[in-house]
């Protein structure tokens, strides 16, 4: 069936295209035509390989040779040497930067290890609605191993040794959490999976639940065995109907197969899982608020201590863990804690799933080992900034995080480094911004969210965030003063210092980090009444240039508020005090006389 015996894949990503991959395709085709090989060898342009700094890329199938920094003139030697004679063109081979050895099969490239899918290992590989496909890829093998070969204490120790830290944002060592819960005695304990993923733009947990629900189910059962809980609960946001459906199917299938329920695998251990639904409150992602919501109470956080591991759901010892944390757990038991803790940095082990979004070419879900730099993520995996614009900032951690700039790009990503740089890991949202983003507006956007989502219990968050938001709004509307800027800082620090829960304790982070890193932009808004990114409408003015203006009156007629005046055939002007900046005039003008300043 296969007609072609060889394929030449040329990278057509934005980066390589700019370096003439079109020309490479053309030249290769020409060479093949000349040698009459056009029916045996196919040249195809592909999407971005993500290896943009070494582009243009040419990959040869089926032997997986990976040529880097290829020039159009190399087409001849590729065809003559590699295609015809079967000899790889050594000068074009990728050299491993560690030992300068040439890599002939791209499967061995370290580049591919830049993304290492552990939590996402089955996503995109198995059909999530078929438990057998999951079992074929080792689902429930870890549970079996733990139940039959380890005591709860041993299993907890393995978790501690792995160094796994909570992936929901808190970064608390998972093993420690399990140990504390196991040491508190009660007639009933609970295991809770926090699937309330609330950060705007974050979809890591959703993808795991939609793609590999069994990994979470299995891990919850292991958690139950370790701490002595027979009941598990998944608190999942109602806005994830597909994830809910797939989770239900998975739970039912697990029950049918005897992998959930009474006496699992004949070991005497029983465990079952129920679902609980959120109702659209971000604050219910905070563990104590989540627990209260499940109990039927108002979803408000309560003070810690006592921690849930001591007194949680219905007052019993409870472990609350994030979806992504659970997804990592079966692998840790199968491959061992020592395998896991070799990945990552000294204090942050393993990988992290990020939802890469914003002004970037390759928007999507990535999973990278801790310690990968931001530069690698944005420029290599992400394919660089869209439309060739200039990088401005990258925001991590959602509404709890901060904006990092050019000078932070070489920071290895891990929990402590990000905090030290003024941001935080959060649940894994990563939003890239370019020169067309206004940082003051960005801070205000995040405050929009936290003001809306605050539970309202404690004064600093309920009222303080509202005031922060109002202040940013004033600045964006061009009415801010320098005195206001000082107040922003003090208010932010007090809110952080006095709020009851993580929402309030981190909501001023976007403000503080943009104040630190983009103070000039704030000054411009306040002092010069200017928004350099062109985002804050109230700081923009629509102006009619009298030269090209012929006085056709088309703009005056389309203006909804009657702000434009002028005689027919004479130059027109816009009254800035009336103008609502809708832009209709600019759209209407055939003479390009109207522009934004």
């Amino acid at each position, binding site marked *: 069936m296969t007609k072609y015996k060889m394929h030449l894949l040329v990278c057509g990503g934005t980066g390589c295209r700019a370096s003439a991959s079109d020309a490479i395709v053309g030249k290769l085709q020409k060479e093949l035509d000349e040698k009459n090989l056009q029916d045996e060898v196919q040249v195809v342009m592909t999407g971005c390989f993500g290896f943009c700094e070494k582009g243009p890329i040419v990959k040869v199938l089926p032997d997986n040779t990976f040529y880097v920094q290829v020039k159009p003139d190399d087409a001849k030697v590729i065809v003559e040497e590699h295609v015809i004679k079967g000899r790889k063109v050594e000068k074009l081979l990728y050299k491993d930067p560690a030992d300068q050895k040439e890599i002939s099969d791209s499967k061995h490239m370290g580049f591919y290890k830049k993304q290492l899918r552990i939590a996402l290992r089955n996503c995109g590989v198995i059909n999530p609605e078929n438990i057998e496909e999951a079992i074929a890829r080792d689902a429930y093998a870890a549970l079996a191993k733990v139940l039959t070969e380890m005591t709860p204490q041993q299993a907890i120790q393995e978790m501690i040794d792995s160094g796994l830290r909570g992936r929901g944002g808190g970064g608390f060592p998972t093993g420690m959490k399990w140990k504390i819960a196991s040491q508190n005695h009660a007639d009933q304990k609970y295991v809770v999976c926090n699937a309330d993923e609330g950060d705007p733009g974050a979809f890591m947990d959703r993808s795991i639940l939609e793609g590999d629900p069994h990994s979470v189910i299995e891990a919850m059962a292991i958690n139950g065995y370790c701490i002595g809980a027979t009941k598990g609960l998944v608190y999942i946001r109602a806005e994830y109907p597909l994830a809910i459906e797939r989770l239900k199917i998975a739970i039912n299938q697990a029950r049918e197969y005897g992998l959930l329920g009474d006496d699992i695998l004949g070991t005497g251990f029983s465990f079952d899982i129920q679902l609980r639904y959120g109702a659209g409150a971000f604050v219910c992602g905070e563990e104590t608020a989540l627990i209260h919501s499940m109990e039927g109470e108002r979803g408000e956080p309560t003070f810690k201590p006592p921690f849930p591991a001591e007194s949680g759901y219905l007052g019993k010892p409870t472990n609350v863990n994030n979806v992504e944390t659970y997804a990592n757990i079966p692998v840790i038991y199968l491959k061992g804690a020592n395998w896991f803790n070799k990945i990552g940095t000294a204090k942050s082990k393993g990988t992290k799933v990020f939802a890469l979004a914003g002004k970037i070419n390759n928007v999507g879900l990535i999973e990278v080992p801790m310690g990968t730099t931001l530069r690698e993520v944005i420029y290599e995996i992400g394919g660089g900034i869209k439309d060739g614009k200039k990088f401005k900032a990258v925001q991590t951690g959602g509404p709890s995080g901060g904006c990092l700039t050019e000078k932070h790009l070489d920071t290895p990503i891990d929990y402590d480094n990000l905090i030290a740089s003024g941001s935080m890991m959060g649940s894994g949202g990563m939003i890239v911004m370019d020169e067309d983003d206004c940082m003051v507006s960005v801070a205000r956007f995040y405050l929009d969210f936290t003001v809306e989502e605050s539970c*309202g219990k404690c004064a600093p968050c309920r009222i*303080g965030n509202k005031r922060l938001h109002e202040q940013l709004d004033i600045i964006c509307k061009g009415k801010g003063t320098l005195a206001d800027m000082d107040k922003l800082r003090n208010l932010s620090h007090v809110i952080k210092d006095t709020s009851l829960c993580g929402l309030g304790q981190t909501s001023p982070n976007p403000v503080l980090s943009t104040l630190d890193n983009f103070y000039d932009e704030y000054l411009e808004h306040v002092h010069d009444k200017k928004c350099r990114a062109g985002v804050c409408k109230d700081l923009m003015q629509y102006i009619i240039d009298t030269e090209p203006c012929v006085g056709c009156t088309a703009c005056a007629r389309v203006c909804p508020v009657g702000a434009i005046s002028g005689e027919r055939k004479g130059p027109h002007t816009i009254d800035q005090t009336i103008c609502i900046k809708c832009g209709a005039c600019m759209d209407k003008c055939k003479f390009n006389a109207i522009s934004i300043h």
Partner: protein
Amino acid sequence: MEFVNLTIDNKSVKVEKGTSILKAARSVGIDIPTLCYMSLGDMNIENKPGGCRICVVEVEGRRNLAPACCTDAHTDMVIKTNTMRVLNARRTVLELILSDHPADCLICAKSGNCELQTMAHKLGVREIHYKGEMSTYKEDFSPSIIRDMDKCIMCRRCEMMCNEVQTVGALWGVNRGFQAVVSPAFEMDLEKSTCTYCGQCVAVCPTGALTEVDHTNQVIRALADPSKTVVVQTAPAVRAALGEEFGLKPGTLVTGKLAAALRRLGFNFVFDTDFAADLTIMEEGTELLDRLGRHLNGDKEVKLPILTSCCPGWVNFFEKQFPEMKEIPSTARSPQQMFGAIAKTYFAEKIKVNRKDMVVVSVMPCLAKKYECQREEFATDGNPDVDFSISTRELAALIKGANIDFNLLPDEDFDNPLGESTGAAVIFGTTGGVIEAAVRTAYEIQTKKKLEKVDFEELRGLEGVREATIDFNGLPIRIGIAHGLGNARKLLEDIKAGKSHFHAIEIMACPGGCIGGGGQPLHHGDSSILKARQMAIYQEDRNKPIRKSHENPFIVKLYEEFLKHPMSEKAHHLLHTHYFNKKNEFIIE
């Protein structure tokens, strides 16, 4: 018992494990300011949502500030309660709260008595740096309580009292974020909710968000109207607490000054609700004995236990939440209402005044009484038996406004014939008092023997649910007592389940009984004040020459001249009532 040793502001402190930093600090004289925190220690009630963040302190090694009221003290903690970091945070948080609070102090009912106002003064706030939008809500006027939620600071005390102490469930935290507020479900009016008007929420609210409906204007107008004969009655619990409004120690009895003040205010007749309390005992005691007799004779239909019914908050509670049991309470009206009925018939006839020209005002420790006197069944041809009810606090305001120097007043007596009362009547003001008064009379009528000891200590105390068995000359009568609606609920559930073994139960809606009513001077969580008031009540009882209701000569005369005998037809018409099913059901479309 384990102890912890820590340092607060460089002072060494040793406290029991599990003590909060706040209490630990107070034990060495460091008074960390608080706003939402409230403790009614003796009743095991504590409100500590940790929401106002005023009591934050610095704890060495902790990244952020800790709320002192809900953080436990641990060994080796080093705490600083007044560094500049703490002061800055406290002031900023207070400014934030003030920025969302109307500046109504001039006309606010709580001015001078407002915890927020006091805090702003204490922390020296001169400017609010963070002004902005304010959260506003529709004002809610019910017959007894006004909710002005613009002034709510989300301290959650009212929610705690209503849900955990009273178990009424009318108030909850609703909405999220800036618009979060405490309110009945769906922000409906109190009147439509299951609220009983017990007023415990008003008693604990630190600001002017929850206040009583003010009837002093109506009283002043009535007093100023020359065509009206204004009669006043005053409840037993008032005399034990009114003095606090004038700087007297809690528990100072001011009966004489109270009568004098009322006279100086211009009331034509200064009477005593206690008189009607004796009347209540006559009617209710007879009813108790009647039911008891039928029960002992084998009547299976008769409803026992008999429940007291003088507390309107309690009546609202069972009408709204246990209407299926409305045949069980006594049919006797409350003393306030009995008084009004008698005043506008018996007494009006005596002084030849038309009932329409008589205005009956009651001074009550209670806010539910404002609702009670408006009940349709307590009026004749549209003319209510009791026209207005004002609270102890409102009376104090009237006295102060009239330039009367309360502390210099001489002791005076109440007028007759509706002013004489016994010791049994005065103990109505505290939990256990009504049933003790009933027992004093019922005992003598039932056994036809004279009571040697009039004090029944086994019925007294402050525990939420109490029980005692009184020996009626060989017949054991089992008495149950509950105060606070949460405790009432427990007894009601038992009756519903058929598990109740009592013959008679006394229920008071407010913790402590009427002395802790919603209209009393605010105790701000200090339960020693309630204890002191209770002592005063029992002291007045001991000072009375006559201590059993049926020995009140004016009561005897009332029956001879007017009512004939307890439970007569006239008594039934004027002094008894029946109850309604007031369960609210809402259909949510």
